[in-house]
């Protein structure tokens, strides 16, 4: 079930916009939130929802939302996961850029916490994230279990910076992107 609170949709102005939801083990939620995030981002950043498939930028953000939520859903115990997206004027350049922040939070055992930290560390240390991603893909293709691609896909294909916070038995993964105000471009 959607259990959401929204700060309202700022129509292409400087008003922050926020959405959050809690979710249990309901895979259908991923598709719903993915579609919502695309529309939400386009309405906030472009002032309108584009026809059918949304903007390129909205598509990147909805992909990131999907991948992070799926990780939380797969690895988090039922009923313990949450998702949020915030779109604010970028404090460093509020007139020209948005700062988009996607967060997922779920309970995670020490093994999962360590895995996520290790993957994010490797990503941040790589000089060329795209080459790193392609290397992961090559390794993944020959590995029977798990893709291990989700976080790198968010970093490279959605062009978002990633970090995580461990808080007791909870893990919060944060993806951020600075997005130019560009209503006539790719969004």
């Amino acid at each position: 079930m959607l259990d959401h609170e929204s700060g309202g949709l700022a129509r292409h102005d400087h008003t922050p916009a926020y959405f959050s939801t809690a979710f249990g083990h309901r895979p259908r939620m991923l598709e719903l939130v993915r579609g919502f995030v695309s529309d939400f981002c386009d309405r906030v950043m472009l002032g309108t929802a584009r026809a059918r498939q949304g903007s390129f930028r909205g598509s990147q953000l909805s992909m990131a939302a999907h991948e992070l939520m799926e990780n939380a859903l797969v690895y988090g115990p039922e009923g313990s996961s949450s998702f949020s997206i915030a779109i604010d004027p970028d404090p460093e350049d509020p007139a020209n850029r948005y700062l988009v922040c996607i967060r997922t939070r779920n309970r995670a055992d020490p093994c999962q916490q360590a895995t996520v930290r290790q993957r994010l560390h490797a990503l941040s240390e790589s000089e060329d994230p795209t080459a790193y991603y392609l290397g992961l893909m090559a390794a993944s293709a020959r590995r029977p279990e798990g893709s291990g691609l989700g976080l790198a896909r968010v970093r490279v294909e959605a062009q978002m910076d990633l970090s995580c916070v461990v808080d007791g038995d909870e893990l919060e993964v944060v993806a951020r992107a600075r997005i130019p105000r560009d209503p006539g471009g790719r969004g």
Partner: protein
Amino acid sequence: MNGSTSIRSVTAESLSAAGAVEGELVTVRLCGSAELGSKAMLDEFLADVLVASDGCREVVVDMTKLEYMNSSALKSLLTWIVRVRDLPELRRYTIRILSNPELHWQQRSLHSLVSMCGDVLEVEERGEQSS
């Protein structure tokens, strides 16, 4: 080879997959959304495609109605492509993916696949194919 032979169609969650062999050409169509719960089905389907495409010249994969593919499904697709690339040269064939430029994720993810496997993989932009 005469006539057309179907590859077993499968449906799981939001994804449907179907294919056919016609002479040296294999056509595959993926529709819907490949996400949580569809990976095992997609793995099985692509394993069937690998068998059915033995001796073919080209496999065309129509993804113009594939709304989304998560990273697990992307891995399934990649695994199949790598298996094709690993075939002995005389049995190797080209994979041509028909993509939909309106589905932005395809531009990004297929670009990544081509970066890795451009020797056997081509991507051709199309609008949605009629069913």
